[in-house]
């Protein structure tokens, strides 16, 4: 564990009956770092957050804050602030009383509480709303009150459970930016759970991708997109479709991919992130790593089956000769649905060609 580690999850494991919800999960955060736990539903990200908060006890593993084991500490004594998915604002208390709740629980003096409540509300742009009833607030305001309430007692760690999922899409983007600003300004170590890539990428310094309770990969958004550790990461982050290929390595380090149904692609070293694979492999190619090149040598023949307009370049669905489907990004009008085309690697060395062993998942 690095010496500057502030928060650490060490081999955390939690099972519900036969089901392993979180499986030996280890992660570390530096002080002030924001980590996004990303994954499909059922991947264990919420359970991981609840283990961190102290609402669940792990079957094995530890949670450490500044190298001190807090696993046995009940939630009430962990000093972790949490924003709940549905906020869980106390409906029988007003905004000020909600924000004051945590300060009262730690026994802050009354005058102090009043000042800190108004500071916390100011921080989230809700100054002066102390006496408002919770039911009178909009969804966005409730979200900010929940944040103010969690931050008021100055917790060591901030936990966010799908913090934006309850907001409508137009509000979500704005609230996301505001949330990021508040977190950065305070500089609090934060773990957030989300199933939205955009949210994870914008809020997280690093993103941990979970599947079936296990950590698939952790890294910056660019790492996850550019160097996926597993086929799951390659397909969950961004678009990529699997095609079985034969990998041949030339003596000069030049790499050749033989595609099913014809096609022989030559890749420059910077175009592939396939490690040392040779022989049969599965290729996950990003749409922008491919181009349409009819009649060119080595092009894999296919037929355009679908066309989706996506701004600057459109996404062409192409069925290769043996039935495998790939997506190619190209300017609108490059081809028509039903047209026969050839597929080639993009000329720009953008990466986006990921090779994995055929049995990898």
């Amino acid at each position, binding site marked *: 564990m690095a010496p500057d580690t502030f928060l650490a999850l060490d081999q955390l494991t939690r099972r519900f009956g036969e089901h392993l919800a979180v499986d030996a999960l280890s992660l570390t955060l530096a002080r002030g770092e924001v980590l996004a736990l990303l994954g499909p539903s059922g991947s264990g990200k919420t359970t991981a957050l609840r283990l961190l908060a*102290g*609402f669940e*006890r792990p079957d094995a593993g530890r949670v450490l804050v500044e190298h001190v084991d807090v696993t046995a500490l009940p939630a*009430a004594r962990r000093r972790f*602030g949490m924003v709940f998915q549905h906020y*869980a604002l106390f409906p029988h208390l007003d905004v000020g009383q909600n924000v004051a*709740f945590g300060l009262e*629980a730690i026994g802050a003096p009354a005058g102090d509480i009043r000042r800190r409540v108004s500071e916390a509300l100011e921080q989230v742009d809700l100054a002066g709303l102390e006496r408002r009833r919770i039911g009178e607030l909009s969804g966005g305001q409730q979200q900010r009150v929940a944040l103010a309430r969690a931050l008021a007692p100055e917790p060591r760690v901030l936990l966010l459970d799908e913090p934006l999922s309850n907001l409508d899409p137009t509000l979500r983007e704005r609230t996301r930016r505001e949330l990021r600003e508040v977190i950065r300004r305070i500089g609090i170590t934060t773990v957030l759970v989300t199933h939205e890539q955009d949210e994870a990428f914008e809020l997280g310094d690093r993103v941990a991708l979970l599947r079936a309770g296990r950590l698939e990969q952790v890294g910056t958004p660019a790492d996850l997109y550019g160097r996926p550790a597993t086929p799951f990461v390659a397909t969950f982050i961004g678009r990529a479709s699997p095609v079985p290929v034969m990998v041949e390595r030339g003596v000069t380090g030049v790499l050749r991919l033989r595609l099913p149904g014809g096609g022989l692609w030559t890749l420059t070293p910077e175009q592939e992130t396939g490690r040392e694979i040779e022989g049969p492999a599965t290729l996950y190619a990003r749409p922008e790593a491919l181009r349409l090149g009819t009649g060119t040598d080595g092009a894999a023949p296919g037929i355009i089956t679908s066309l989706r307009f996506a701004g600057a370049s459109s996404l062409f669905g192409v069925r290769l000769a043996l039935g495998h489907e790939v997506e190619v990004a190209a300017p609108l009008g490059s081809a028509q649905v039903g047209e026969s085309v050839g597929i080639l690697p993009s000329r720009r060395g953008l990466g986006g060609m990921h090779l994995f062993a055929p049995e990898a998942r």
Partner: protein
Amino acid sequence: MNRHSPGAVLLGVLLALLLTWLVVYPIGIVAADAVRGVDGFTLEGFRAFLARRNEWQALWGSVWISLATVVLSAGIGVPLAVFFTRYDFPGRRVLAQLVALPAVLPPLVGVLSFLFLWGETGFAARLVQRLTGSPDPPWRLQGAGAILFVHAYSMYVYFYLFVRAGLRGIDASAYEAAESLGATRWRTFSRVVLPLLRPALAGAALLVFLSSLASFSAPYLFGGGFRVMTTQIVSTRLNGDDRLAMVETLALTAIALVGLVLVRWVDADGIIGGSKGAPPAARPIASRRARTVLASIAWLLAGFLLLPHATLLLVSLVPLGTWTNEALPPAYTLGNYVTLVSDPVRSRPLFTSLWMAIVATAGAVAIALAIGALVVRRRVPTARLLEWLVALPWAVPGTVFAIALATAFSVHAPALLRFILVGTPVILPLAYLVRNLPLSGRAMLAGYRRLDPAYEEASASLGAGGARTMRRVVIPLLRSSLVAGATLAFVAGFGDFVTSVLLYTYDTRPISLEIMGSLRSSDVGVAAAYGVVLMCVSAAVFLATAEREPGG
């Protein structure tokens, strides 16, 4: 909260033991006494029970009266609920509330008002006599018909309230979906609405069946020669044949449990209100004439349903000995109420009932709150047992329960955990507490299940400990469930007759017994005045809970 704290587990075990001791153990003792002879085990009691024709008659009487009550109550309550939910006409809101008013008459008070209204010397009979000039009363309010009449009047309310709540839980889109699929109104009702109402119907049917099986006041006062099990048990006991009374008690319990199991089985895969949202708005009746006719019928019906209440009020104003054979009482006074307050002998039962009901309610609510937390949140190992123990007294008829307590706690055997409580002021509050525990227990369990655990987690994550979370978050959020559970338990205890009649002492004589006493000494004015007090307390309590109902 996946791991149980040792304290929670211990409390769960202690509560389970306490309830087992108070609920299961006494019934077990009844069962043991039923087979205990002079020299050990004997089935003599059962043999006597099976051999006697009148025992069979009483058992059969209980069963068919209860089934008939279910059918009659459903026949009245369901159409009323549909009518008042679906159709709009002038005065609908007020009438929809008035129709539920029989609920504010505690069983004994309802019976009392029926006696004054429909009895052979009641207002209705006198009116008919005056119109026909006949010297004899036109009818006698006695036998199975009279019991059914009282039952249907007081119990259709369960169907009415349950079905109305059920209809309100069906989203408008369910009707619209059926309509867009080409279903006729009848098809929509039979294929969509009825299945969605099944839990409400099953719940109401069970409640009516058990209430009517346990009904004591109506058969006691109107049964005449007609036998049902509850009155049979009391008379057997008064005759001194304790063993036979035990067997009868077991037989009645068995029928109640069969009813409970049957309904649970029918409703096992009950659909839990799948849709959330708004029910369709009540449909205004287009034709002006139909609207007028329906509104008039509805008002007449409401007036009819309110007659017993009015009767009670009227009789309570009659001075002692002034009303003999006139159609309406010739003189009115508030003297009966003054007596209730000023005469210490008269006012004492009021205070006795009040303190016993308050103590019992406080105890029941505290136990219910603890059980809610242990069962729903902590999921202690004894959770299922606790939930079952809390529900059980509900299925056990009041007579059975009183007999069981009277049997178990009239012996001093500390080693067997049997103490002499009968004859002490403890027994009645204790009986009320346990008997009405299902009312507060169900309310708290339901409230806890609706309460999002995130509130408690939020409180914990803000540094609040268990006690603080309970005081500042859980209790305020469960307030409506607490109030509902407490008021139901209080009303039931305050007006209780069936357990009191078997367990009271002179010092703990509650209102219901005083009503019976006044009635026996022909002091109908005072009896009615007590009845009005009970009715008003119930009404106030129901009004208070009804207002809070929409809250979380």
